[in-house]
């Protein structure tokens, strides 16, 4: 709207009234149709039920909101100090990047102690396991999206492959979790390469669309291959994890009995917590290590400029395939964990919204940033739980929060990039210089 672009002139009452009038008309036009008219099923068809009060209330909120904005934010004289002083902003940026060195280890210590803290109950531990699963998935996807710059909208497919691999191998052959875990990772990596081949030549939006389709194909195959995957019924009775062969059972030979403890159902939860923590840390460790190896630098170089990579003798085919395979492998590990934790899996757990959520974690955290993924997972998954009471508005609140964060920090919470090697002094690279790669 024109008046928003020139706030100074809107202070004059006539213009202000005109602007509010336009706002009222527009919001009535939108809410009048969307909220004001409601279809109800009646015998013999549908009936329109007017709900004018709700529509008017929403329109009133829009008008009053705009009036408030006119009187406060938009009426500030030009050259007035910004609402958030630049100093504060710079300090926040500094704190976000500078404390990374202290913040990471502190978070790790907290994560290690969490099950033994006095306020920790089953609910908190279950939630932490969920958050850590998403941290691990975020780290896995970060390799593909953040480092190699290949937008993958079907990452959940590898999560599904890992989960079904573990479930089927463990159920049919009775193999242990520790044997199935690497197999699930290898199978997921294999499917990562299968996805990698067709998208090798694709750029930009086309890459994103094909990965999206791949995620859907996997889900639909799982849904329809009834005799093998159980279709929509899923697979139930997946073996629960044991402590290196010792089951978490009550009685003789169980975990509590072997270690002379009183039986508690928490033992298994604590074990699962440490299991996912270890898997997530493994993902992090390997990723950090790979970043300092030639393959990691090649991924980042691929994100920056593919043609320059080829001119330097990098085989971009294998660089892309290794990125897809490595990312998929960690997705597969997380899937195997998911299957053993839930004891039941069905294609419903692997819908597109999961891919979108994992991608949101990576983008919100700042592409390529490991600690950013942790913060974003805690904020998103933890936030979902906090707002569980506000059931209907949960998605709305999150949509608004995401938009606000992306306006404030368009390149994610941690936008700067840490160099993988330095000669004299380690200097962070500003996010503005870092390319985003294909498909963004």
């Amino acid at each position, binding site marked *: 709207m024109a008046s928003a672009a020139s706030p100074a002139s809107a202070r004059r009452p006539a213009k202000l009234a005109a602007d509010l009038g336009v706002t009222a008309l527009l919001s009535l036009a939108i809410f009048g149709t969307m909220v004001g008219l409601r279809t109800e099923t009646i015998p013999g068809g549908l009936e329109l039920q007017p709900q004018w009060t709700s529509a008017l209330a929403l329109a009133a909120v829009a008008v009053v909101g705009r009036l408030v904005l006119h009187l406060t934010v938009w009426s500030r004289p030009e050259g007035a100090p910004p609402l958030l002083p630049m100093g504060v902003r710079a300090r926040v940026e500094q704190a976000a990047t500078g404390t990374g060195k202290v913040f990471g280890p502190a978070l790790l210590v907290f994560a290690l102690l969490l099950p033994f803290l006095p306020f920790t109950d089953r609910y908190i531990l279950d939630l932490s396991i969920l958050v850590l699963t998403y941290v691990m998935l975020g780290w896995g996807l970060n390799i593909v999206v953040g480092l190699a710059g290949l937008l993958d909208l079907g990452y959940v497919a590898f999560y599904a492959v890992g989960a079904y691999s573990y479930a089927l191998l463990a159920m049919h052959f009775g193999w242990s979790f520790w044997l199935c875990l690497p197999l699930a990772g290898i199978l997921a990596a294999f499917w990562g390469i299968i996805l990698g081949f067709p998208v090798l030549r694709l750029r930009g939006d086309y890459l994103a669309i094909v990965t999206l389709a791949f995620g859907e194909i996997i889900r639909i195959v799982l849904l329809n291959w009834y005799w093998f995957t159980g279709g929509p019924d899923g697979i139930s009775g997946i073996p629960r994890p044991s402590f290196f062969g010792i089951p978490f059972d009550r009685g003789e030979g169980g975990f509590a009995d072997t270690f002379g403890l009183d039986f508690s159902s928490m033992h298994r939860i604590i074990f699962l917590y440490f299991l996912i923590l270890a898997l997530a840390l493994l993902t992090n460790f390997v990723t950090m290590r790979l970043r300092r*190896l030639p393959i990691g630098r090649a991924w980042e170089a691929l994100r920056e400029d593919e043609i320059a990579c080829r001119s330097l003798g990098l085989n*971009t085919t294998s660089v892309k395939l290794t990125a897809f395979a490595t990312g998929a492998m960690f997705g597969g590990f997380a899937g195997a964990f998911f299957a053993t934790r839930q004891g039941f899996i069905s294609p419903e757990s692997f819908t597109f919204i999961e891919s979108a959520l994992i991608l949101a974690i990576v983008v919100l955290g700042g592409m390529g940033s490991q600690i950013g993924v942790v913060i974003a997972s805690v904020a998103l998954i933890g936030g979902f739980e906090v707002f569980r009471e506000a059931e209907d508005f949960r998605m709305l609140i999150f949509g608004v929060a995401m938009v606000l964060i992306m306006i404030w920090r368009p390149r994610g919470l941690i936008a700067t990039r840490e*160099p993988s090697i330095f000669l004299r002094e380690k200097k962070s690279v500003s996010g503005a210089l870092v390319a985003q790669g294909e498909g963004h």
Partner: protein
Amino acid sequence: MAGDALLEVEHLTMRFGGLTAVDDLSFVARRGEITALIGPNGAGKTTVFNCLTGFYKPTVGRITMHHETGDTFLLERMPDFQIPREAKVARTFQNIRLFGGMTVLENLMVAQHNPLMRASGFTFGGVLGIGGYRAAEREAVELAEYWLDKAGLMARADDAAGDLPYGDQRRLEIARAMCTGPKLLCLDEPAAGLNPRESEELNRLLLFIRKERDVGILLIEHDMSVVMGISDHIVVLDYGAKIADGTPEQIRNDPKVIAAYLGVEDEEVEEVEHEIEETAAAAGGEGTA
């Protein structure tokens, strides 16, 4: 040895649909020499480069790289990424293509990807911390430091490549190409957009590469001070075809070249030729007087 044929281009033709961008071009670039490829805009110079470095597959023709070991490589048959790796041909780009979000040092490390990849046991050894990766990385950093020093970029080693001024970016791109250990360095307009001081620094870097490293350089350039100042041999293209081939002195006085650059009609070429002779005679007269 210096003076041997390093790159042989024979009957190179590149057609895009009905357009013949390069027409039956043959020339030789020699080891330890700077060969310049010049011509008016749209003459097909960059297309020749793209054929040499595998970004295009030529319609007709043969491109042969001769190593001093006696190995020969037919570049038109190799996939693009193998040309720098096996045939040792490195290139830079007209519009600079650095890894802007990575530091200067990282850019030079990516250029040494293939030897480092082998040293890291194709990543497996590197992840587990076994094998000679650490030593190999140290060597790679040393090579990078060597070229940083030669390119005058030592002080900027830890800065993002995208943060460097234009002239530094040009030299960094050359340093990065040199880190691949090439036998032939193909430079696409390295002096474009440089100020006279930066041009001078570039000339020095190129002469150093030729003198010290026994590397052949193939150069596309519009800046005549660079071309005439440092090249040993010049090939002139116009409308995709070669119109002249010789030393800077010969090219400077070639009527066809002058006509191509000034854009005179074919009938007027003789006229121009005549004028040049007169000017040359006058200049010669002054010299002896």
